């Protein structure tokens, strides 16, 4: 191939670095990947920085400060394709728990001088600020899916990502349903596949790292789960977790919470 290798920039916003780390964790494929693409900007991996524009921007993290709003717009302006990497970037992630409470109060709880801080009241997905070309969910993302997304982009095709829920992964693994068989609250039926159903496989319920699946029946799920709660408010807390700010999960919690009760 004589054409220029596509340039890729990897950015971090408000996040734990775990999704970027899944790129560094492609131990078997990292050197091949570095042959196939030109890593132009990836602060966690290299000091070297090439100026944009870039073919692909891969963005980890949610938008939680005024400065990040400006930065994400700059990323959009310099990249042909923007990929939101992980549930922080696609739904605000765990940081979005502040959206259901008072961020000022959190700041007072955690920091001695909240007046030194600059932050937004909400933690939001990239798509609330810029057009995003591709979203890859997961907390953390599945590295096989990251490779699939990069290969798809390099070959100018859509990535092949599972459209079904965690339930199908349980069936494939031969994992007996924890919800039906053991009465353990599990939001796998409402959650996108991608993790490999790791939680039900070890005997616990799914807690929604990969965001809402398509065609969820929220009412039926909530009704069933509420009969199985092991502590008060478990159903609401399961949905209001890692992917809690995703619209489908938000609606479920709003529907089951009485107006005067708060899950947070």
């Amino acid at each position, binding site marked *: 191939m004589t054409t220029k290798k596509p340039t890729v920039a990897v950015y971090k916003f408000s996040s734990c670095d*775990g999704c970027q780390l*899944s790129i560094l964790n492609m131990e078997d494929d990292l*050197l091949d990947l570095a042959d196939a693409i030109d890593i132009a900007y990836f*602060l966690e991996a*290299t000091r070297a920085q090439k100026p944009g524009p870039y073919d692909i921007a891969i963005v980890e993290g949610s938008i939680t400060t005024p400065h990040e709003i400006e930065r994400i717009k700059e990323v959009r302006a310099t990249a042909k394709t923007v990929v939101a990497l992980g549930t922080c970037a696609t739904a605000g992630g*765990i940081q979005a728990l502040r959206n259901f409470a008072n961020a000022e109060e959190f700041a007072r709880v955690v920091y001695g001088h909240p007046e030194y801080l600059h932050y937004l009241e909400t933690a939001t997905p990239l798509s609330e600020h810029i057009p995003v070309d591709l979203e890859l969910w997961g907390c*953390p993302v599945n590295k096989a899916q990251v490779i699939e997304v990069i290969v798809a982009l390099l070959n100018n095709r859509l990535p092949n990502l599972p459209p079904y829920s965690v339930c199908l992964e349980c069936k494939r693994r031969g994992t007996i349903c924890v919800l039906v068989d053991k009465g353990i609250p599990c939001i796998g039926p409402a959650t996108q596949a991608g993790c490999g159903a790791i939680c039900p496989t070890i005997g616990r319920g799914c*807690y929604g790292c990969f965001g809402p699946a398509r065609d969820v029946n929220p009412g039926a799920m909530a009704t069933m789960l509420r009969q199985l709660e092991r502590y008060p408010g478990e159903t609401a807390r399961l949905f209001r977790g890692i992917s809690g700010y995703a619209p489908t999960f938000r609606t479920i919690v709003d529907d089951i919470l009485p107006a005067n009760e708060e899950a947070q």
Partner: protein
Amino acid sequence: MKNIKVPALARVEGEGGLYIGLKNGKAVEIRLDIYEPPRFFEGFLKDRYLQEVPDITARICGICPVAYQMSAVYALENALGVKISPQVRALRRLMYCGEYIESHALHIYMLQAPDLLGKESVLEVAAEAPDVVKTALRLKKIGNELLKAIGGRSVHPVNVCVGGFYSWPDARVIKALLPDMEWGLNAAIDTVKLALTLPYPDLEIDYEFVALHHPDEYGVIEGDVLSSNGRKLSISEYENGYIEEHVRHSNALHSRTVDNNTYLVGPLARLNLNHEQLMPRAKKALQEFGIRLPIKNPYKSLIARSIELVNFYEEAIRLIKEYKPGGPAHLDLKLIAGEGSGATEAPRGLLYHRYKIDARGMVQFAKITPPTAQNLPRIEADLFKLTPKIVSLPEAEATLIAEHLVRSYDPCISCATHFLKLKIAEK
């Protein structure tokens, strides 16, 4: 006039900047500007059920999630007054071995070694020494495979709960890791040899070292908080010795001792205080290669990490051989209102948690003191010491040595916000 600006420090976990203000060639002001956004984890934990805590605290750090899970479960178990079984304890140590292997291999080869080899990244190293990088990637992969075998995945594993594990990992899967582990132990010993050949910048600091100390094993999950100044506190007394405060230029809190001293946590502190408790092969490596302790050069924490890499491969091999799941994987918890603290050694240093829970098991209060918050004042103090040595150097070189110092700490900036752009400016 000297003006050095690097927009953001690379090869660290998280985001921050460094400002060095000079006057007549002397540093008059040094600040590590943490611009990693504030994250309100202690706030998120309030009113969550205790079993949700390890899943939430894992999200503080993608590189050391196990540490955040372990300190949390120990603290919550102390709040409930329960004690885990020896089998669960052994599996927790094995899981921690996986995190040390993965995190140390990453830091030694991919984050710090490029500085010592005059490269921008591990990919540049790979262009010249592909076999070294392939070895590094395999060393790291084995740690991740161990984490996956126990926790379901390496980043944010899902098997850790208050009281133990959701279920015992399959013994066949764990035992199948042995050949790779044996290879890893030898490759880790080669890593020590390589570490001893690298050209570290000169810098000797009289640190107060602080680490968990356990008489019978290399301190990781239980023991006392030991200082090289002689202060020895139980984990529940930690806050009597060490104070965290909020400073203006940082979204991270800064720690100091009650005697108003900065202190160092992490691999140098652990190795210098706990080398007697190393596994036999790791201890032998210290002697065999003539490594004299204490090591007081922060850049040489890479050597301490390499010894720990040997130690944790060695301990993983022992624990895998002994692994025999038996009894319940987790305790049946009786909920009571209570308060408890827990501390474990994350790969980058001591990590302290304290929780108050109510009778329903809901968190009423959470306090988390990450290793990097404890090291930040120490990094600033080291930079003061370093600056006179580098002011006469060409700008690019001076910048690199200062950045390298910060990177040698393996700072976890995301964790501490709750980190780096370098700017040296003449005032």
